[in-house]
């Protein structure tokens, strides 16, 4: 890295940082330099060492070797408190908020009294910050009533509230709609413009170029290059990141749609955590097609999944699968009837972290032969099936008896997908199936969804990632305020879909 002797020292300099875990070198003599005033993207696959690096910067992990300099002075980030004292704030993928407390209480939680100021002042400041985000979040609202996207905003606002110097965002846009992402980066830009710096970790190339001043690519725990984004092009970065050429994105073979498999008619439910209930929502999924649901988070996606699974009571409406009425069945019967699900929140709803791989597979298989006979578990068969799934979905797992918490997110998701597909569902409801996954795992998930389609089954894909929806879906339904506000096709322009997502309904005659 060329050093200009006249330039002031960078805000943060990391030199030869090394951190290993049993069997893995997560950071291997890693160097990184972040300047005041810049937005710095950090790009890398899962397992490239991004999270470890960020945890070290956040004072949550102690490095084995290496040096960290802050404005030219050597510092020790021995604790999260030490990091916070310098003005380093992190926003994690998994939000660290207290659900029962209000937004205001969460934001001021842990602040010393003098920094918090009088409650009224704190609330005024918070309202001002919230205003910049163009959100309807109320400071007195309990966090548990917020959607995932809104919770993330609260996390960021919490950092901004603390006079941040270095804001670290871990995959900040995973749960956001495009316009929310733009807002977020506008705010990030404003933070940087005041002489601070922003690091954001991402998989998404478009974000690197749209919002990053510079980009650092990590691979296998090392910095394989830092560039000004204006001087790089996406393919080169991807090649650096994965160390090989990526296979071209899957192309869907055209298919004539088959018979209707899943039909939802005029569904209505009470509001869930996203505070939006379903409002006479109707849709159908045919054999051999992927129906994508696009929409801003918190518009009824979670409620739709829960309603289909029988986890949320229908106030009105009817759900049929293969002309079997599911409306009054319980979840077990619905799953047995041929509906499969990949839950959107993997940690909360898909896996049990304390359980091993076999137990997590059994969870998805349910009490069905040959794994469970007459109430008795056959661990030998369950183990065999686990091994099969591990092989077929290339799960990088040591042994079926190891806890699933040892797997990276991408490989956990492979197991989750593998176990649901093992039941050969007629229709798969896949919520955010690639969210937060490494490139390889995401590609595998997409490929298997297309495999469902090719096998004449149906997929209902709910995703915040509009690119993914456009790439995979045969038809796209845009959900807004609990109803399908309009339909689109993969050839519809992003702008048009974006308008629908913000609630601007199409002109008459455009719905198929």
């Amino acid at each position, binding site marked *: 890295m060329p050093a200009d002797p006249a330039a002031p020292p960078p805000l943060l300099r990391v030199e030869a940082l090394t951190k290993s875990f049993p069997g893995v070198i997560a950071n291997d003599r890693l160097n990184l330099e972040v300047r005041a005033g810049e937005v710095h993207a950090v790009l890398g696959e899962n397992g490239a060492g991004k999270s470890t690096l960020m945890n070290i910067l956040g004072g949550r992990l102690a490095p084995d070797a290496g040096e960290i300099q802050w404005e030219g002075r050597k510092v020790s980030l021995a604790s999260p408190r030490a990091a916070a004292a310098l003005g380093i704030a992190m926003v994690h993928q998994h939000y660290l908020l207290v659900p029962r407390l209000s937004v205001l209480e969460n934001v001021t939680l842990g602040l010393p009294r003098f920094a918090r100021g009088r409650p009224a002042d704190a609330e005024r400041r918070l309202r001002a910050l919230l205003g910049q985000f163009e959100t309807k979040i109320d400071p007195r609202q309990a966090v548990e009533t917020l959607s995932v996207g809104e919770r993330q905003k609260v996390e960021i606002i919490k950092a901004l509230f603390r006079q941040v110097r270095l804001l670290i965002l871990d995959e900040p846009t995973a749960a956001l709609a495009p316009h929310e992402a733009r807002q977020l980066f506008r705010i990030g830009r404003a933070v940087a413009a005041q002489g601070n710096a922003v690091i954001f970790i991402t998989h998404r190339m478009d974000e690197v170029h749209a919002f990053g001043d510079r980009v650092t690519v990590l691979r296998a725990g090392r910095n394989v290059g830092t560039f000004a984004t204006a001087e790089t092009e996406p393919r080169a970065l991807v090649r650096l990141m994965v160390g090989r050429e990526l296979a071209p994105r899957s192309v869907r073979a055209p298919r004539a749609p088959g018979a209707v498999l899943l039909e939802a008619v005029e569904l209505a439910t009470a509001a869930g955590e996203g505070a939006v209930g379903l409002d006479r929502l109707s849709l159908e999924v045919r054999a051999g097609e992927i129906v994508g649901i696009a929409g801003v988070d918190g518009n009824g996606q979670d409620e739709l999944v829960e309603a289909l699974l029988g986890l949320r009571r229908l106030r009105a409406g009817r759900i049929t699968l293969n002309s079997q009425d599911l409306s009054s069945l319980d979840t*077990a019967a619905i799953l047995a009837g041929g509906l499969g699900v990949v839950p959107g929140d993997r940690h909360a709803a898909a896996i049990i972290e304390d359980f091993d791989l076999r137990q997590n597979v059994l969870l998805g298989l349910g009490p069905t032969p040959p794994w469970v006979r007459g109430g008795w578990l056959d661990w030998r068969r369950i183990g065999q099936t686990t091994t099969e799934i591990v092989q077929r979905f290339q799960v990088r797992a040591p042994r079926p008896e190891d806890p699933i918490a040892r797997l990276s997110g991408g490989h956990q998701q492979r197991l989750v997908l593998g176990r649901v597909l093992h039941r050969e569902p007629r229709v798969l409801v896949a919520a955010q199936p690639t969210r937060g996954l490494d490139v390889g795992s995401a590609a595998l998930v997409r490929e298997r969804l297309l495999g469902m389609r090719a096998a004449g089954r149906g997929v209902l894909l709910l995703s915040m990632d509009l690119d993914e929806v456009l790439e995979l879906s045969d038809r796209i339904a845009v959900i807004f305020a609990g109803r399908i506000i309009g339909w689109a096709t993969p050839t519809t322009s992003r702008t048009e879909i974006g308008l629908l997502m913000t609630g601007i309904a199409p002109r008459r005659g455009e719905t198929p």
Partner: protein
Amino acid sequence: MRTLGLTLLSLAAALAAGAGLMAAVGIDPVTAYRELGLGGLGTPRNVAETLLRFCPLALCALAVAVGFRASFFTIGVEGQFYFGALGTALAALAFPGLPPLILIPAAMAAGMAAGAVWGLLAGWLKVRFGVNEVIGTLMLNYIAVLFVQYLLRGPIRAPGSEVQFTPLIPAAAMLPRVVPWARLSWGIAVPFLAGYAVQVFQRRTWAGFRAQAFGANPLAARYAGISGSRSVLVVTAVSGALAGLAGALVVQGEFHRLQAGIGADYGYTAIPIALVGQTNPAGTLVTAFLFAAMDVGATMMQLKAAVPLPMVRLLEGLMILFVVGGRMVLSAGLGRRVAAHLRPVSPPAVPPAAPQP
């Protein structure tokens, strides 16, 4: 293995702290501990006495462990114990003519059924009305204990007796003694069989798996089609049956009748035992034995080393504090590592030797 080592270390630390306390109030801890050990395990008779105490403690602790494993935080073992004892006594008294081969298991089964019903009631209150199980089971304890007391005052009191107890149960319902010189009955086999059954329930049955899944992550369980209500009902029934079995053993193997104070707070002592035993069957049985030995040894310690009984309770308290606290200290020390594991720290996605482009 690691948790076992930690538990032993914590117990040693608790004994050390107890020694310090005793020394501070002028008791010689060496003598005290010697008498405690000898009292609990020093002679065959003392061992037999310890095993007698062990039976209900172990079964009650298993009942607690089954509930806690499924995140059903039951305090209700005490009440279910009393219901079990009542069921067993009534069944035994109702069929005096039956041969032992039938009456012994039948009376035992009646106790289990009565305990299960009382347990199910708490489960049903939770499932149907969302009654918090801690409050629900605690209230049901009062009802059960006072109801049994009421019965002992009148309806089922032994005719002509001043003491609140039922008549003796028929000899055909009594569990035979292991040796003539001690009160210990063959009921001593029951906790081990029950421990094995709990192990099988948790490891080999769908009902046990379901309960643990629901306890560990209710949302994931629901997404997998597991009904929380059914899981809670099964767990409360199994837990209640174990507590009822403890009551049955005390009636059939020890007192040979139902009488007031028969429970000696087993249902409450069982909670720390289950916790110290990490809510797994083997750990729970070992801990129950330890607590039983301390309980029996305490009397001896009190007599010979002039250690007041509260000191024994204090020791037990210290053990719980150190074992449960030790785990927390450990997890705090591990906090950083755990935090790291929560983040995806997977092996490098690409072999480090991959050629640079």
